[in-house]
């Protein structure tokens, strides 16, 4: 399952036409809080998106890349509307998968990339305070174990998948 999820990240190809700036890879360079040598500084992201939803739960995905020679440890995620956002992983196998909170931080090894994708690790909105409306963008604040932080734009898209079961009691 993990391999499948990561495989999604390899669907790059051919001609290098990048996406418009509004939805381009957000790098920590745009962050005001990022400082040289911080974890926020080391993070680059691409293909970030969040699943549209009016209420309740939703999730956010994308590729997180660590361009530094030290680990990046994603500690906490927040947004301007004050949603509770957890770091989730999937447990179980086949049709019988459920998600639970990751224990500790989400660690990205030096030079490595972590893919957050439906059916795999993701950022979980536990109970939306405002709808996530398709075509709009939500900005998330990513905080790291060294206290640095950066903001990343997540364009909102319709998505029928990512209906994973949530195991309330796991991982707490």
């Amino acid at each position: 399952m993990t391999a499948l999820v990561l495989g999604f990240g390899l669907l790059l190809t051919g001609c290098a036409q990048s996406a418009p700036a509004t939805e381009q890879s957000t790098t920590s360079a745009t962050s005001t809080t990022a400082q040289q040598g911080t974890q926020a500084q080391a993070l680059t992201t691409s293909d970030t998106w969040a699943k549209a939803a009016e209420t309740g739960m939703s999730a956010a995905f994308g590729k997180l890349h660590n361009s530094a020679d030290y680990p990046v440890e994603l500690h906490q995620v927040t947004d301007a509307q004050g949603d509770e956002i957890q770091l989730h992983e999937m447990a179980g196998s086949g049709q019988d998968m459920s998600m639970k909170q990751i224990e500790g931080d989400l660690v990205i090894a030096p030079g490595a990339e972590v893919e957050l994708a439906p059916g795999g690790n993701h950022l979980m909105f536990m109970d939306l305070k405002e709808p996530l409306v398709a075509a709009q963008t939500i900005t998330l604040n990513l905080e790291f174990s060294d206290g640095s932080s950066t903001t990343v734009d997540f364009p909102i898209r319709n998505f029928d998948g990512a209906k994973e079961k949530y195991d309330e009691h796991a991982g707490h």
Partner: protein
Amino acid sequence: MSTQGTSIPRRLLLGSTAAAAAGGLLTGFGAGTLRSAQATTQIPASELGYRSFYGQYQSGIIDAQQEHAVFIGWDMRWREGSKDQSKKQQVQALLQMISDDAARLMSGRGVLADTEPEMAQPPSELTLTVGLGQSLLDVIGQGTVGSMPAFANDELEKQYQQSDLLIQFCSQDPTVLHHAVRAVSKNLRQLTTQRFVQTGFMRPMPGADTFRNLFGQVDGVNNPADQAREQAVFGEGGWIANGTTLALRRFEMDLDRWDEVDVTGRDFALGRRQSDGSPLSGTSVNDPVDLTAENELGLPSIAANAHVALAKPSHGGETIHRRGYNFDDGQHAGLLFASFQSDPRSSFIPVQHRLAAADALNTWLKPVGSALYAILPGVDEGGYLGQQLFS
């Protein structure tokens, strides 16, 4: 969330090594890059079929016509209680999303949230060309394209009439095209309702910009080429610099009654020969349409009400660039007429009025769809379609 350092947190460590170990599916992130780099060095980009999303103009307008097309019209579904300013923002967000989708799909990548990104490869000259109806220009508060007037003989069906938004999808590969259409349509769900999906096909004749339409005629001969084409489409009189307009009309053909017409009658109605497309005023396809030429009897070679006689621009400003497609929806077959022109009021509209009033081909044609769109200017890298309208 457990704090860092309490007991031994089971950290989630994923990286290229972990990924490689996780299954034979892949061999690390470098592999994908290598594969694509090889592909591009060995095969020229044109053969891989990439048309640029970025540029002065949108693709899919004056570039070579692809064999398959889908024109989709959508109407906006505003969020409940939307005020004017919020509607404008909804259109802006929609155009940003469509720009992102188009840039990804045309470069052979899936859109965000794509469930079948593999199907985007190779894009096979995929283009997405985006236009807005006057209704959306009004919401934005800038730009005038106007609406399509009524023409004599129109028998319009509601579903084929003006929509708020239009995307012309074209590709050489109908499977790639299907994926692109579906990916974009999924993204537009809830934001829009679909008014029409009009699918078309054509096959260029060897070495030419022409194709056989479903009457059997050679179509596209006297389309403007090169600079004349660019001038007709993007020249002065346009609604915005580097933008243009699209006239989209759906003509059903009465092929059963066309069957009853012998070839002389057919050629007479068009003013050109079905056999090789040559004008009745000449002998080969590229001979000029000469309305003063006479036959042995001293009568005009091309009748005054022949299609080409009436369609021929009466002056340069009437020139349009036709980029239409054949269609067969299982019930009806015909021509999905599509033309680009900088100012429809001085070109497409007067020509269509002339044809609607007297064209000999009208006997076998039924216009059921009609709409006019403002085609947005091209986009620079980092920008989005329609950006000029929001500044």
